[in-house]
């Protein structure tokens, strides 16, 4: 085997070409990270505009149609371009091979291909906004989506392409976890982030193709009228909803599982304690991946689905609470009597626990049939999934990015400003969304830009919150970019972590390790590493 010089992967080769054609999982991960945050800020600008429009009850600067287009684009960009690829494609790409002691993912060329497929999908998605932004909502429900004159075909094609990218990432990660582990890295010595990526890969591979065929059928419906979803031709529009949610419910776990994995990494490192119930954590990830496929019908409670199907789907949805609950309790138990180090990533982890718990519990309200009939299509639902997706996934993603920033970039960010941003984001998020639970329970419907005067104070409150939230993100970009150029050089192991990524330099060398690391202890066995007993 040829000898690879031990220089860090930034300096190994230089020039634009060395990035565009790179097969190094670390560079691909970083490129993903850039694109994914770009998408986030795009979707974020849409969100700020939506909130601004909602400041007054009569719709003051957007037409009905523009508002429809704006919330559709916010949803589509945030779901397909940001949150589905978010953690796996960026941090997962960078750290999965390192954490199992591999030199790269199983198929580096496929990895680069999936990145470019993502870029092509992004071009289609953003391009569709220019030729007639979609106004169907990100779910593209038929029959409206087959009759509107906006660019549904281009946008669904984008989602189709992005789905393909997601499948290829899943295939790559699954093969990597199975076959690329270093000697001694047995299944139960793998960090929990790896376990969660594995469970995510299974969902990506088995659920995404169903979205693919659904969107393809929608495109065929719109172009050659095959009639499957068209009620005027004898087709069944509810079938579209079944197909769509058969993917899109599991997709929720594509979004949250990697975040849960990150949580386990951060909580154990900053509590300096072995994760409580490691095997339960690993199995609960798999359990979530399995149950994920059995609950899609809870999106159709009021669509005319049979009552018995509703009851079964309601029951199965309750089941999801069990593995999710196991995880939350285990994180709490891990922190109990640990020596907590309140660094920024850990603050985000705490924010996750707080917000995800609210998001999860309100999910149980919605799983209850009688309550759901009242709450369907109100702001309560909007608040619920934002608490899970932003309060959960995005908090963990930002936390994880801070946790590994020194490792990826080789520079330390400013801890003071990081805490300020964390505080602003946490505060702003709650200001925006907590009142939406109240509005929703009082019957404020989603997807309207005009509303009854009585909701005005709450809507205004939510809009003010969005400015705090936006400011928090602005502070974050500034100090992160600042750190790239002026940050202190990061040591190899700034947080005294003990998983494998801390055993290589910051940033890592070209093939991740100078020599293949020896796996001598369990991933979170701080007692063994520190040579003392932690109570």
């Amino acid at each position, binding site marked *: 085997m040829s000898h690879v010089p031990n220089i860090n992967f930034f300096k190994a080769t230089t020039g634009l070409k060395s990035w565009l054609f790179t097969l190094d999982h670390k560079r691909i991960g970083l490129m993903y990270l850039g694109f994914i945050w770009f998408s986030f800020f795009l979707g974020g600008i849409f969100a700020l505009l939506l909130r601004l429009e909602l400041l007054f009850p009569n719709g003051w600067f957007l037409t009905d149609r523009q508002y429809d287009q704006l919330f559709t684009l916010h949803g589509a960009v945030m779901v397909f371009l940001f949150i589905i690829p978010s953690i796996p494609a960026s941090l997962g790409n960078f750290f999965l091979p390192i954490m199992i002691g591999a030199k790269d993912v199983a198929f580096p060329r496929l990895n680069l291909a999936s990145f470019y497929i993502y870029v092509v999908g992004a071009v289609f998605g953003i391009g569709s906004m220019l030729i007639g932004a979609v106004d169907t909502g990100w779910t593209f429900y038929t029959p409206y989506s087959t009759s509107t004159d906006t660019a549904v075909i281009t946008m669904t094609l984008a989602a189709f392409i992005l789905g393909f990218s997601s499948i290829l990432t899943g295939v790559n990660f699954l093969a990597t976890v199975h076959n690329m582990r270093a000697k001694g890295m047995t299944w139960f010595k793998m960090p929990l982030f790896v376990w969660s990526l594995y469970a995510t890969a299974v969902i990506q591979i088995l659920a995404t193709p169903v979205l693919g*065929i*659904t969107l393809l059928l929608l495109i065929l419906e719109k172009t050659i009228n095959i009639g499957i979803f068209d009620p005027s031709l004898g087709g069944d529009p509810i079938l579209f909803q079944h197909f769509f949610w058969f993917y899109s419910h599991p997709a929720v776990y594509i979004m949250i599982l990697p975040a849960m994995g990150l949580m386990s990494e951060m909580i154990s490192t900053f509590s300096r304690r072995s994760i409580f119930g490691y095997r339960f954590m690993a199995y609960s990830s798999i359990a979530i991946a399995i149950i994920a496929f059995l609950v899609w019908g809870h999106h159709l409670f009021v669509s005319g689905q049979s009552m018995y199907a509703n009851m079964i789907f309601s029951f199965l949805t309750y089941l999801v609470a069990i593995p999710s609950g196991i995880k939350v309790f285990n994180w709490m138990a891990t922190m109990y009597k640990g020596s907590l180090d309140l660094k920024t990533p850990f603050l985000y982890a705490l924010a996750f626990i707080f917000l995800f718990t609210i998001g999860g519990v309100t999910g149980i309200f919605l799983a209850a049939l009688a309550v759901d009939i009242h709450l369907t299509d109100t702001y309560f639902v909007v608040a619920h999934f934002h608490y899970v997706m932003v309060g959960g996934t995005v908090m963990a993603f930002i936390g994880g990015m801070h946790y590994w920033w020194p490792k990826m970039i080789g520079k330390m960010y400013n801890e003071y400003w990081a805490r300020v941003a964390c505080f602003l984001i946490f505060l702003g998020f709650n200001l925006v969304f907590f009142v939406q639970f109240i509005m929703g329970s009082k019957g404020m419907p989603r997807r309207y830009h005009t509303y009854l005067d009585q909701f005005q104070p709450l809507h205004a409150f939510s809009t003010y919150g969005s400015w705090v939230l936006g400011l928090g993100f602005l502070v974050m970009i500034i100090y992160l970019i600042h750190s790239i150029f002026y940050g202190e050089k990061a040591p190899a192991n700034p947080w005294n972590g003990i998983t494998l990524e801390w055993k290589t330099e910051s940033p890592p060398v070209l093939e991740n390790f100078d020599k293949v690391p020896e796996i001598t202890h369990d991933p979170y066995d701080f007692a063994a590493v520190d040579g003392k007993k932690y109570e």
Partner: protein
Amino acid sequence: MILMILRQLMEKNMSSNEVLVGRSHEVAHQFDTAEQEFNTAKLGMWVFMAQEILFFGGLFVAYAVFRMMHPDMFREAAHHLSLKWGLLNTLFLLTSSFTMTLGERAIRQDKIKQGIMLLMTTVGLATAFMGVKAIEYAAKIHHGYLPAKWFFGEGMDNSLHLFFGIYFALTGLHGVHVIIGIGLILWLVYRTIRGEFGSHYFLPIEMVTLYWHLVDLVWTFLFPLLYLIR
């Protein structure tokens, strides 16, 4: 025929772990051994095929749902398809799966010429399949048996147009897979002629063979569902 192919498949699976690849082929840098590379690629391919099955799965579910909604219409619809052409195509595809497997086997045993002949036979059969498909499509279009909105064919049942929406979606998607398969096999032939494959390295051939069996397998479901159940 199917039994023979199954036996081929099983033999291949049993022997692949024993055959160590990698005499002159250079193992990609991320792997330690050729065996690891081989097994990883194979796992990746199997997983990708699971994805393919779910992709078609959506259409099969649509078929099942509409069949349940309109059982009489589906019974009538099958009479509008030509059993003869369908049978011939089934024969073409099953045989092509067989020649594909034989071709892979030949190249693995360094019988390069024979291997290329067999791969080209596979391409020939696949092209014949597409030819028959074209004849069938032309007849359907001529008689107006088109997807829902364009339908002007004659039939007893007034929801017959729905069947042809599903028919064209299913067979069309399958046809696209056949065309991709033809491209892949031609690419294999090109690389074989350049001398890249032999007993020392045949991973891509193995992958494409797996893919080709899948295309065949999908058809063995399509044929009875669309043509046979009357």
